[in-house]
């Protein structure tokens, strides 16, 4: 039980947790943030495994660019203050439409 093993274990545990949370967190924003964290931790883990090329790429692309894209998209679909008045109504409408589309 040396330090590396503990470090690895911690890393793996937190990655799994982040993996779960980046999907099932209550708010989408948090999901994205957790996902970026997951990417960064993955980069560390891969550095740990000797894959430095991949680690750099993951940090830059997997966490960085993907995170930026996600956030930008999130920003686009997030309800803005002016439009957040009748969330229920819009909800109902879209879901109606959804069911139509599914056929």
């Amino acid at each position, binding site marked *: 039980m040396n330090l*590396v*093993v503990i470090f*690895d*274990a911690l890393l*793996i545990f937190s*990655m*799994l947790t982040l*993996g*779960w949370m*980046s*999907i*099932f967190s209550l708010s*989408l924003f948090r*999901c*994205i943030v957790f*996902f970026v964290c*997951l*990417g960064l931790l*993955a980069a560390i*883990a*891969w550095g*740990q*495994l*000797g*894959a430095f*090329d*991949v680690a750099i*790429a*993951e940090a830059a*692309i*997997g966490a960085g*660019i*993907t995170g930026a*894209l*996600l956030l*930008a*998209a*999130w920003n*686009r*679909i997030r309800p803005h203050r002016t*439009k957040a008045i009748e969330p229920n109504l*819009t909800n109902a*409408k*879209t879901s109606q*439409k959804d069911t139509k589309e599914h056929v």
Partner: protein
Amino acid sequence: MTSALFYSMAGLALFAIGFFGVVVASHVMRKILALNVMGVGIFMFLIALAKRNPLVVDPLPHALVLTGIVIAVAGTALALNLMVRIHHIDQSSQEQSK
């Protein structure tokens, strides 16, 4: 039991979590995230695979993962783009109906 083995198991677990998320999550974005988590899981598995012999690092999986990461980001971007566009159409139709 090497650490690579743990990592590869972690990769598989991430894959499973991601798949679970894909099946269960409701929002598109969550599904996209879940797919990405699956991807990370596979990448992890591959990289752990490269290190399964503690003495030699196999660079081939690294190359594969590099390629995979780019493809994943491309797919994510496209999916997000489509999602945003659908959202936009919904919104504008709502405005019109008002």
